[in-house]
């Protein structure tokens, strides 16, 4: 699967699950796996780090 931003090849691990964040190795954009049915994967723009994130 290619990066929706820059078209570089994304490395999505076999065991990746819905909700996981994938980063593009080329442009650094973050995507969240929004759907996964077998090899059919859909991505959406990941939430940016919120001001209230962390611990």
């Amino acid at each position, binding site marked *: 699967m290619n990066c929706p931003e820059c078209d570089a090849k994304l490395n999505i691990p076999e065991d990746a*699950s*819905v*909700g996981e*964040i994938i980063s593009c190795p080329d442009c650094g954009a973050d995507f969240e796996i929004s759907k996964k049915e077998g090899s059919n994967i859909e991505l959406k723009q990941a*939430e940016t780090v919120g001001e*209230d*994130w*962390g*611990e």
Partner: protein
Amino acid sequence: MTDVTILYDSIRWEEKSLLEAGKKKNINIQMVDCKKLALDLEKKPEDYGVVIQRCVSYYRNLHATAALEGLGVKVINCLNTGVFAGNKLFTHMLLKKFGVPTPDATVAFSKDAALEALETNGYPKVIKPTVGSWGRLISKLNDKESAEGIIESRETMYPIYQIHYLEEFVKRPPRDIRAIMVGDKIVAAIYRNSEHWKTNMSLGGTAEPCKVTQEMEEMCIKAKNAVQGDIVGVDLMESEEKGLVVHEVNNTTEYKNTVRVCGVDIPSLMLDYALKVER
């Protein structure tokens, strides 16, 4: 039937490892994305089991816990822990009450009051947002000039940043300690080493195993109980003057680096604990 629900808003290594540990143990784990959740506050939801709260967003975490707990679902940690541990001043007061050594601090409610307190108590001090994480907006105030600039910049921010929490700058080795508590036990602890005075892993600190002493464990149990926690990460510093001091209790602790360097299966221990607690 669900045994344990992992409530998340971003799947990090921690959440994945909980799911994996659940599969190995044959526990029915339900993963719930809090971002997709709408809770009817008038109806008790079915089939949550015990909820392990893992939302990375503070406000989402707190409000989801309030809703679920209010509806009768057992959430780890409970709402009080989210409120108390999520605020450095609230935590400070409770640590003092429970006899846990913690760095001295002052709270000031305006720029002028803060600068006056700094003049009286002396520099350097560390200014921390009472609510905040990953070391963000924590600044060292070395002198009056830097304090004026930093505090003035906070006057334009959201009101929580105008509660000026001023903590003593603790003289210590270039590291602090993160102890992971599951119930009344430190299951693993690490030193977080950093050349920078902020030792947060998210800011590039490095981890190495830390031997747990009886003193440390007793202190951490008190700190956990102070905020009414079940599973928490307690942060300690080795003060040259006071010995061990607790400066923070983390409500939704990260533990990736602790598992990596200590080789302790923290996710499994968390699940064992969750299954044992009263619902």
